[in-house]
Structures are given as C-alpha cells and as structure tokens.
C-alpha cells in the first residue's frame, strides 16, 4: 500500500487528509484558508480514497450515509404500506390470498398481492432492503471506525501550527513578560476530569473519547438485533404451534420433537354470575350487556417428559413433570417452552346412551353406552338381548345418492345403524338412529333404540411457543441503547496548549456542545495571563478573517 510520510516523520496510510500524529494537512485537499474539517479526524477512509474497481464501488455505495438513510426511508414506507390491508396470516383461510385481495379491495388489492405486500416480511424485495440496510450499517461503520480509532490512537501532544490555527477554538497569548504557571493549568484541567499528556511544556488535555464510539456500539446492537431476527428460521430456535386437546386426551406437544407430552385433565370456562357473591361488584355491568361475560378460561393439564429413546408410534415412556393450571396470561413455562391458552370448544359429544325398548309396552331391556371416539362392534345386554353396531357416522350427513356418510371424524353429529337382536327377533331388526331421527329401513320394528343420555366434554387449544432469539434481541436492544447514551450524553473534548517561543497557543475541539468546551477553557484560563481563545466560526460570520488567521 502507498503511504504518506508527513514532515513530522509519521507515516500515514494513503488517503489521509490530516496527519494522524501532528495534524498537518498531508492530503492537500482542504482550502488552506478555511477551518479544518475535523470529521473522522481527517483520517484515511477507504470509501473516500479508492473508486476504481467494482469492489471499491460496492464498498463506497454501502458506506454512504445517504444510501443508508434512503434504505431506512424505503423500508419505512414499505412497512407502512404493508399495514393498509391485512397481512396474509389474518385473512380468512377459506379463500386463497390470490383471490382474496382482488375480491375485497379491487385492482389496488390485486397489485398489493402481486407486489408481495400481503406477506411483507417474507417478500424477497423487503428482505433484500433489510439485508442491504444491514450491510450499509456494517460497512459504513467499518469504513469510519478503524481509521478514526487509528487516528486518535496515534495523535501526538504537539500539533502542527497549521492544525492549531485552523481549529475553531483558537487563541494566541504573548507571555514574554509574564509568568505562566503550566502546573496550575494542568491542575485545573484535571479537576474538570481531563486526561493530561504533557511534552516539553506542551499539553494535550482530552476527555470523553469513548463517546466517539457511541455510534459504532449502537450499530453493533442493530446488527445483533438483525442476526436475532435471522436466527428465527434456524431449526430449534423458534417454535410457534397450536395443539388441540380434548378432556382426558394426551398428546405429544408439537415442536418438541416428541420430548414432551401434555394431558388435558379439564377445561374450565367461567362467566361472571349475578347470583355469585364474589361478582356482586359486576352486577350492573352484567345487566347492561345482557350476555355472559367471560371470567376465566382455564386448562388443567399435566406435563410429561419422554424418557429414553422411543420411536414414533411406540408406547411412550413418560415421566410426570408437573400439574399446572393454564389461564389467559398465565402460561405453563418449562424448558424454554411456553403453553398459552388460545382457544376452546365446549360440550363436544363424547358418549351416548340408549335403551333397548319395546315400542308398544315401553319395556326396557337394558342400556348401552357408546364411546363416540371408540365404539365397540357389539354390546351385550340382558340374556338373549344384544345390539350390534353395523355402521357409525361421527359427523353424519346424507350423500347426494342418499347414502349416509360422515364429514369428519369428530362426533359433531353422530348417527348409528344398529341391529337389535332379541329372543323373539333372533335375526335382528335394523334401525338407523341419528339425533332426533329414527329410521327403520326394513319396515316396522317391534323394538327401538331410545335415547337415554349424552355425555360431553370440552376441548382446549394451546399455543406452543419457544423463542431462543429473545435473549439475542434483548442484548441487541440493550447494546443499541448503550451506544445511544454513550454518544448522546458525553462529548469528546480536546484542548491543546502549545508553547511557541514567547507565545502560548491554545486550540480546542469537540464533537458537539461547543459551549461546554468554551466554558471548560474559560475556567482554566481565568486569573491567568492567558487570553481566552476565540470561536473563529463566530468571527467568520462577521468578517472573513481566514487569511489573517492563517497568515
């Protein structure tokens, strides 16, 4: 790499504008008459130095703040457009998204769908924008941080005259006939918590350098945040599933790879009750709404852990972990997993009972109870009496051709074809029984199946959630905030005191809050023969004294 050797002897990297050590302009890029542009200490930024190869161009593109801000604006605008219509997850699952948006919102809806706004966070162009934003943050930081760090590390106590003169805060005091107590000055600087470096009666006082790293710390936080978001798609990091459990049912918890099982012991749904003493306070509200107001949704569950290696389908070897009552906002948490109450279904049929009955005399010959989720092929009653289950339709409907069939396997509307075998009808009589229906396909029967009762049970739906990226997102957020605070509440202030023959030169620089710096200097020079240095920027406003200063 080509290097630039300054007359002070320090070797600077190519592209350097101000010598890292003494501050003399080595790049010949700045107007000699103006104040120095102190951004990034005049260090050699790659993006400002090379612009030939394709790598240079890409690098320069991403290190540009303009590009970064544009990307943020584009992402913001896209995100806000994404909120105009509902996202795909929230539209009814009965209509495909390709039809829904056009149907609901017309031509604009169609365009919305075609451009991928319906699934914004997964659309390729949105991800590309976010990815480019991440690259921009990282590259812009690298491009600025390392040269700046190098420059501040290599700075010397004694700065070149031209550097001093062209600082915004600068002043000269002729001290030929007065004593100047440098020790008093350093004492005062130290009192204001400046770190002092001295060399042959010259002083460099510096404080708050770490505030210069604020933006980079902040960017590291952002990058960690983005990485956390990315990790969601890595298997094992993130689970978001739903499990339905009927009362008494036990199932593998989805997303746990067979490690955990859950049993639903009971689902409880409570409403506020006027008659209940506890709810007295709510009587007015209950009367006002007129409908039941939900008080509690609760699943009483038992969590089990699978012990040992068991194949799917094999009988699981379960070890009870704990009983728990899951309520809204009171999830069952275990081993990074959390189970939240999300939905329920009340009073699903589970068992039905019938009497075998003589239609005329209404004499009963025993009852049978059918488990609607596990019916038996036949039921023995009193001696000589039995009932065969010829067909069972858990969710019964008639097909177009008039044959009975079932829509699903869930017993929403159970129907049965029974064969009733009795001593006087040993061949059996066939009866079709559904809710409020009794058909005798083979003509008039002597016996019938009379409805005796029904048992119901509730079902609960739980969301299974696991998110190992949360910690990373938190860390990213905290680092982000540390960076903000670091850069916002502290300033990097430097004061140079240079002895030049019979003169003492004072120059000051800060990255923000010039008033604070001036006050610091005023406190140092008061009661000493030293003049308070002037703010050359203010002076320039009134008259262009640039030449005078550099002269």
């Amino acid at each position, binding site marked *: 790499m080509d290097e630039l050797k300054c007359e002070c002897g320090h070797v600077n990297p190519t592209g350097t504008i101000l010598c890292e050590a003494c501050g003399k302009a080595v790049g010949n890029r700045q107007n000699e008459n103006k104040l120095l542009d102190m951004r990034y200490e005049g260090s050699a930024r790659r993006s400002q130095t090379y612009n030939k190869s394709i790598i240079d161009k890409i690098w320069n593109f991403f290190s540009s703040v303009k590009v970064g801000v544009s990307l943020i604006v584009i992402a913001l605008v896209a995100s806000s457009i994404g909120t105009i219509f509902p996202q795909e997850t929230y539209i009814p699952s009965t209509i495909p998204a390709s039809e829904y948006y056009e149907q609901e919102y017309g031509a604009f809806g169609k365009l919305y769908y075609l451009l991928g706004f319906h699934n914004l966070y997964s659309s390729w162009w949105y991800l590309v924008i976010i990815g480019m934003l991440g690259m921009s943050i990282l590259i812009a930081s690298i491009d600025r941080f390392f040269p700046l760090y190098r420059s501040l590390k290599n700075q010397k106590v004694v700065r070149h005259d031209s550097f001093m003169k062209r600082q915004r805060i600068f002043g000269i005091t002729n001290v030929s006939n007065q004593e100047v107590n440098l020790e008093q000055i350093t004492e005062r600087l130290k009192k204001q918590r400046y770190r002092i470096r001295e060399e042959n009666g010259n002083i460099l006082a510096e404080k708050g350098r770490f505030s210069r790293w604020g933006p980079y710390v902040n960017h590291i936080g952002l990058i960690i945040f983005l990485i956390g978001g990315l990790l969601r*798609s890595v298997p094992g990091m993130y689970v978001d599933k739903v499990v339905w459990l009927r009362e008494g049912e036990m199932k593998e918890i989805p997303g746990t790879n067979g490690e955990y099982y859950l049993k639903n012991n009971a689902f409880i749904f409570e409403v506020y009750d006027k008659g209940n003493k506890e709810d007295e306070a709510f009587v007015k509200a209950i009367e006002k709404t007129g409908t039941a107001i939900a008080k509690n949704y609760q699943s009483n569950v038992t969590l089990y852990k699978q012990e040992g290696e068991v194949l*799917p389908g*094999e009988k699981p070897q379960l070890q009870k972990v704990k009983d728990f009552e899951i309520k809204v906002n009171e999830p069952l948490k275990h081993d990074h997993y959390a189970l939240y109450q999300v939905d329920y279904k009340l009073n699903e049929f589970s068992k039905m009972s019938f009497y075998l009955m003589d239609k005329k005399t209404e004499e009963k010959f025993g009852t049978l109870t059918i488990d609607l989720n596990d019916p038996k092929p036949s039921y023995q009653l009193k001696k000589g009496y039995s009932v065969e289950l010829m067909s069972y339709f858990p969710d019964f409907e008639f097909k177009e051709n008039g044959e009975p069939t079932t829509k699903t396997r869930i017993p929403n509307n159970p129907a049965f074809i029974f064969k009733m075998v009795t001593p006087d009808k040993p061949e059996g009589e066939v009866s079709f029984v559904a809710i409020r229906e009794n058909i005798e396909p083979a003509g008039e029967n002597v016996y019938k199946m009379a409805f005796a009762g029904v048992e119901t049970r509730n079902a609960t739906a739980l969301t299974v959630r696991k998110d190992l990226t949360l910690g990373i997102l938190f860390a990213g957020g905290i680092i982000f905030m540390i960076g903000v605070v670091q850069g916002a509440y502290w300033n990097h202030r430097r004061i140079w005191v240079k002895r030049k023959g019979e003169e003492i030169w004072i120059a000051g620089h800060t990255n923000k809050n010039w008033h604070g710096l001036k006050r610091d200097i005023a406190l140092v020079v008061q009661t000493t023969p030293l003049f308070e240095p002037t703010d050359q920027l203010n002076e320039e406003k009134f008259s262009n004294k640039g030449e005078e200063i550099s002269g």
Partner: protein
Amino acid sequence: MMRTVILLLLGAALVYALYTNFTKDTANQIQMGSEAPNFVLTDMDGNEHKLSDYRGQGVMLNFWGTWCKPCEYEMPYMENQYHAYKDQGVQILAVNVGESNYAVNSFVSRHNLSFPVMIDKGQEVQVAYRVDPLPVTFLIDKEGKVIDRITGSLTEAKIQQHMEKIKP
C-alpha cells in the same frame, strides 16, 4: 482484500437469509432424499411393523382416514397393486390418522384390504412425517430414503408407476 472478504461474507449472509426464507414452507416437510423417520405401529391383526425392518424393500407409506373420500377412492387400486408387487419386494403400509378401531375395522372389511393397516393413535407418526392434508403417500426406497411425497388421490396407473420406482 479485506473489503472483498467482508463484502463476500455479508453477501453470503444475505443469500442465506433469502434462501432460508424461501425454503421455510418446504422446511416444514420431509425432505426428498432424506432418511424416512422410523416408526413402530401395530396393524389390525396385531402384528408389529417397524419401518427399519423393511430395509431392502420398497415401502409405499399411505396416510388416510375413513371419512376422507379421496383416500377411500385409491384403496382398491392399492389393494390390486399390493398383490402385484408384494412378491417383488414392495410393501404397502396404510396408516390411519388416529380413528377408532371400530371405524378402521369396518372400513378394512368393507374394502377387503389385505395389506397391513395400522392406526396412529398418538398421531406421533403423522407429526414425524408432517402429514397434512390427507391423503398423502410417501415412497421409500430400499435404502430407507424418502424419494417422493404425493398428496391427493392416486390412480391405479400412478400407483403402478410408483411401485416400479421403489422396486428394489
């Protein structure tokens, strides 16, 4: 040089993010060419079937339900092809998605099925194979690898083609 490396790394990260995002939907499915998840189920005659015991043979693994019409539709074809291929080293395993014994038994006798039919009561095998919706059929070759996943009803000709594919 340094910048080239950084740009390459960042570019790779971006490509990876896009890739994982677009394979997100298929990542929820069994990957073709991956090893078929092993399982043990007991058929309606009480015989245990362990998938790994069928190494060296092709296995057509069918998931079905009695209420599912397309499942019912393909059953007779599977029955025919089962007889044609069972001596050529292709097995059919029909896994019901967890209905009652009564429902499955009456379905089996109504359709005179002779291939092994089993019930996945705990729905663990369905979870392992990410079954949804029905019917779905997996073709497993003699090395125990999933070579195809077919959703929807199969015609007899299709079944025969598939049987040829997994014939050892």
